[in-house]
Every structure is written in C-alpha cells, then in structure tokens.
C-alpha cells in the first residue's frame, strides 16, 4: 500500500545540540542517534525541549550549537523543504481552504512540478504538468486508501472529525516517502478511545514504511507501547535512551524512575545497615547493597513490586483505588511517607481505610539511588 522505501535509507544524528531562547536554555548539549528504521520517542514533561529538538531536526528552528545529520549528510544549512522530512503536527496543520486530496497532494505537487508548470492554464495543457498531475492523483489515492480516508478526498478539513483530520495529516506526511517522520504529539487532540486505536495504527504504518520516526509525546503510555527506544528528556537534557522495558526496569536515575510508571514509583529515604540490609521508614529491606553502613540512599519500589503481606513495613490505609483489574492501596507509614501498593481487587474488603496493613516490597526488584539520584 505504502510506496516502497527509498534505496537510500537513513537515520538521524543529533550531535551536541544546544538552544536558548533569550536567557532560557531549552536544550543543552543534546546528542542522539536514531537508527535507519527505528521508532524513537522523545518523552518528557512539557517544556523539556522535546518539541524544540524536533523543530531543529525539521529545520524550522536553528540550533545555537551542534549539528544535525540525516543519514550521512549534515543538513544544518538546508531549508526545511530540502531536508526531505515529513512532520505531523499536534494541531494537524491542514490547509483549511484545500480539499483533503489537495492537502495530501501538495507536497507531491511542489516536488514534481516546477513553478511555471503550476500556473493555471499550463497546469491543464502542458504534457509534463499533466503527467505529474496523474501520478499525484494516483499516489494521493494510494495514501488515502492506506489510511481509509478515500471517501473524504473531496471534503474540506473543517468538515472532518478530529480522528479523520489526524489521518489526513498522517497521509500528507507519508505520501511522499520522506527520509524521516517527525511527529509532534499527534494523538493528544484525540479522545482516549481513538488514541488507543491510533497508537497501534501509527506503529503499524511505521513498520510498513520502514523509515525512521521520531515521535514527541508527554504521554508515557504512548512512549512505552509504540517505541523501539525511548529518549527521556528533562530540563533540556536527555537523561536516558533505552528500549521501553529497560527504561522502566533499569532507570538510569531517580528522575527517570519517577517519570515512568503510573502510579508513580514509591521512593523511600533510607539508610544502609551494617548487616547489608536497608532501613526504610517502618521496616527493614533485605537488600544486598554492598554499600558501607550508614550510607544514605533512596529506595525505589514500583507499586506492583510491593505486596500486601505480613511481616513487612507497617502502615495505615489512607485511600484505595479499584481499577477493576488492579487495586491500588495508599498506605501511610511512619514519618508520613506514602507508599502505593498494587494488590488483587478481591482483597479490597480486607484493607478498609484506617486499617493497619503490612507491605512487603520485593527486595530483588527494589532500585537503589544515591543522594545525587544516580542508580546504584
């Protein structure tokens, strides 16, 4: 359905890119390698610089320092249209006065014809212009079929629903088979149900196109479900680049651990004991840390690695959240530390608010961080 990939396939190299807006430094020394067919997600809270980085790769913004290469070609001096990248915007940015077919066909029209061939009369009469128009119609139809929007080709974007507009934006990006796809939060204007379907669909389209894709989102679920690798950004820096499972299980630092995972990972200020275990508020964890006694550490335990079972950290139930598939129990231990534990929904009656329960974090899944936040 999608045109065959170019023989020339390339990834993206971002080399020590820095950018400031006035006094605010939005990107500092960001480096990133994206493989030729890779789906890489830039994940981070709003204002972390991920969209700016995407715009710099597209050529819509200029880096103060550093360089961008697509494949083996440095593209720093090139205009956006010379870089051969396609972008899907959060607002979709469809041209409101053109039909869907014209929207999708515009990038092809601009590339396959010269400006004089687009003049009103010549467009209809000149053989080269007419031939180009024919191939454009064919390719537009093909892209529209791939995204199941061929029924709307004659409509204007204003007459489409959000989900349909999003498909038109995708079709416009993939129709010309670019070197790299850039997507800037393309799903954030869709409702929750549509978003789940669109996630799978974009991942599938990417696999078929075989082109590198850089996907910006603040939604960790999108990052975890769609990506080959996730680059977690915060405060203008890339904190960790790793496959989703690794970034979840082995976060490089505390900020990564806290950003990924919902509900958030439990962080307990702790001290290493002389016997090798760790003192946590309300109990002791049998972890072989190998650290000298009295070292201050933070212990991170994800809710699903914290069982409600006897003989652990004691605390009082403050709140329960029953999601049907999971039950999250919010427990307050000594020093007003809150710990969230995941349990089977069946036990909900045994943990009423105010009851005293015991939580047992699994020592083998606990993560230790030093005072600077690095994982030990």
């Amino acid at each position, binding site marked *: 359905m999608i045109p065959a990939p170019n023989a020339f396939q390339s990834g993206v190299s971002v080399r020590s890119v820095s950018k400031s807006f006035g006094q605010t430094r939005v990107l500092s020394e960001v480096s990133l390698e994206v493989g030729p067919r890779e789906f890489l997600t830039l994940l981070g809270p709003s204002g972390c610089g991920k969209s700016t980085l995407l*715009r710099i790769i*597209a*050529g*819509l913004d200029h880096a103060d320092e550093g360089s961008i290469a697509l494949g083996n070609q440095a593209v720093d001096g090139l*205009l*956006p*249209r010379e870089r051969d*990248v*396609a*972008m899907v*915007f*959060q*607002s979709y*940015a*469809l*041209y*409101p*006065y053109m039909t869907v077919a014209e929207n999708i066909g*515009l*990038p092809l029209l*601009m*590339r396959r014809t010269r*400006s004089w061939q687009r003049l009103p009369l010549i467009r209809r009469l000149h053989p080269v212009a007419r031939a180009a128009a024919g191939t454009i119609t064919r390719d537009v139809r093909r892209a529209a079929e791939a995204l199941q929007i061929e029924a709307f080709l004659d409509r204007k974007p*204003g007459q489409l629903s959000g989900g349909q507009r999003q498909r038109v934006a995708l079709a*416009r990006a993939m129709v010309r088979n670019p070197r790299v796809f850039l997507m800037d939060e393309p799903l954030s204007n869709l409702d929750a149900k549509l978003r789940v379907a669109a996630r799978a669909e974009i991942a599938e389209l990417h696999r078929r196109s075989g082109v590198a894709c850089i996907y910006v989102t603040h939604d960790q679920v999108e990052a975890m479900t769609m990506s080959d690798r996730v680059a977690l950004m915060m405060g203008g820096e890339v904190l960790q680049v790793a496959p989703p499972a690794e970034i979840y299980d082995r976060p490089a630092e505390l900020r990564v651990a806290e950003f990924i995972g919902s509900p958030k990972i439990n962080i307990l200020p702790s001290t290493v004991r002389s016997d090798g275990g760790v003192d946590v508020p309300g109990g002791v964890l049998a972890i072989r840390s190998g650290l000298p006694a009295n070292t201050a550490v933070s212990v991170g335990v994800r809710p699903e690695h914290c069982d409600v079972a006897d003989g652990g950290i004691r605390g009082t139930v403050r709140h329960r959240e029953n999601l049907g598939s999971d039950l999250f129990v919010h427990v307050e231990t000594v020093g007003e530390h809150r710990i969230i534990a995941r349990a089977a929904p069946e036990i909900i009656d045994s943990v009423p608010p105010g009851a005293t329960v015991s939580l047992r974090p699994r020592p083998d899944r606990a993560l230790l961080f030093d005072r600077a936040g690095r994982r030990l």
Partner: protein
Amino acid sequence: MIATRHLPFAVFRHVVLAAGAVVMLAPFIWLLSLAVKPADEIFTTDLRLLPLKWDAERNFTEAFNKVPLHRYLLNGVIVTAAIFTMQVLVALPAAYALAKLRFGLAKPLFALVLLGLLIPGHVPAIPHYIMLSHAGLLNSYPALVLPSIISVFGIFWIRQFFRTVPDDLIHAARLDGLSEFSIVWRIMLPAAMPALVAFGILSVVFHWNDYFWPLLVVTSPDMAMPALGTVYLRNTEAGTDYGPLMAGTAIITAPLVIAFLFAQRRFIEGMTLTGLKG
C-alpha cells in the same frame, strides 16, 4: 414576558436607528428625486419627492451626451482595479513578513508602517506630483495609480489578520516544499480572503470617489475619474443643468452601492476579523 418588558426599549432603539437611517439616506433620496424631475420642477418651492412630469429619460441621456460618462466609469474601473491589484501585490508579502518572519528589522519596520498610518494622504501629494511631472507621467493612468500602490493601512490590516493564522500551518507548508512566496499566495491569501474583501471595498470606494488627486494630475477630460467627471457636467456651458448632473451622480454612485450589497456579508465578516478557527 421578556418581549413586553423590553418593548419600550425596542421601540426607542428602532426610532433612533430609523432617524439615523433617514439622515444618512436623505441626500441620496433627494438626489434620485432630482434626477427624474424636469428642470422647471427642481426649483419650485413645494417639497415633493415624485415629479409631476417624469423626465428621467432626458436627464440620463443628457448626462451621457454632455460628457463622456461611460469613459469616466471605464477610467474608474481600470484605475481602482489597478490600484487594488497592486496594493494586494505589495501588502500581502509585506504583511506576511511583518506578521510571521523573524528578522532583526521586523519591529522598526512595523513601527514605520504605524507611523505611515498617521500621515494624511495629502501630505505627500506635492512630492508625488513633482516626481510624476519629472517622469513625464502626468495626465495618464500611471499618474492616477502609482502614488496609491503602497497602502500602509492595507499592510497593517492584513498583518493583523495574518497574526491569527497558526504558525504550524506555515511550518507544514515549509516542510511540504513551498517557498515563502508560495506560502503567501497559496496558504495565506485564501486565509486572508475576508480581510482582503473588506480592504478591497475600502480601497475601491476611496479611489472611485477620490476627487483631490485626479484634480491635481488630470488635465484632459478623457482621463477623469468618476467624481471629477461629474464636475465637468456642472461646469459645462452657462448655468448648471441640475437634472442631468444628479442623473450623472446617481450613475457613478450606483456601482459602489451594488458592489457593497453583493459583498456585504463578507465585508462585515472581514471587519469583525473572525479569522480562521478550527
């Protein structure tokens, strides 16, 4: 309930508006009335709208016979169309650059545009006249058109409208391979249509009715614009024949009224500047 409670206000409102409308329309109604009366009825003391004896045919034929009225109308169409076209060719790229491009001089240049808005059109009249005279262009279409092709108001007006166009649309166009000029004509022009229609009406009305500038640069009756042309009707021979004068005035006013009625909705749309949303 609500209707009765607001009835006194509704009546008051309508009376005020109707009074305003009468004041605005009275000269035109009187003009039309005179245009269909024979000469001896125009100066009678009794006030009547409709003539005792209809003389419309004579007045209108006379208007066309005494002066080349059709020539003035043609001049008006050519000159106002040329001015508006050139104004758009200048204002659209300028407005785009001021609204959407980031460059060092953007702010000072926009300040100059605002400054230009403060300068009355009559101030540069003499320099313009001297320049055209040196170029040997007096008493020609270029003399009527050239001084008006840069409209600072047009630049300002369209720039304000372009500010409402989302940046992403321009970014998408750049990635899709459009040059900056293509963006102006393919993306921004259709978006600015309501603003352009409003500006077009203001521009055409102003230049169609302009008396001052044609009076300065036009010497032969052949080059006269409509407003200037009706003056020739007045000045011909001894004493003014008011019937044909009013008929001629009615004829040169009609195209504008008709054009406004057709474009009324878009004009109001443009004036209220509800840009493109959604």
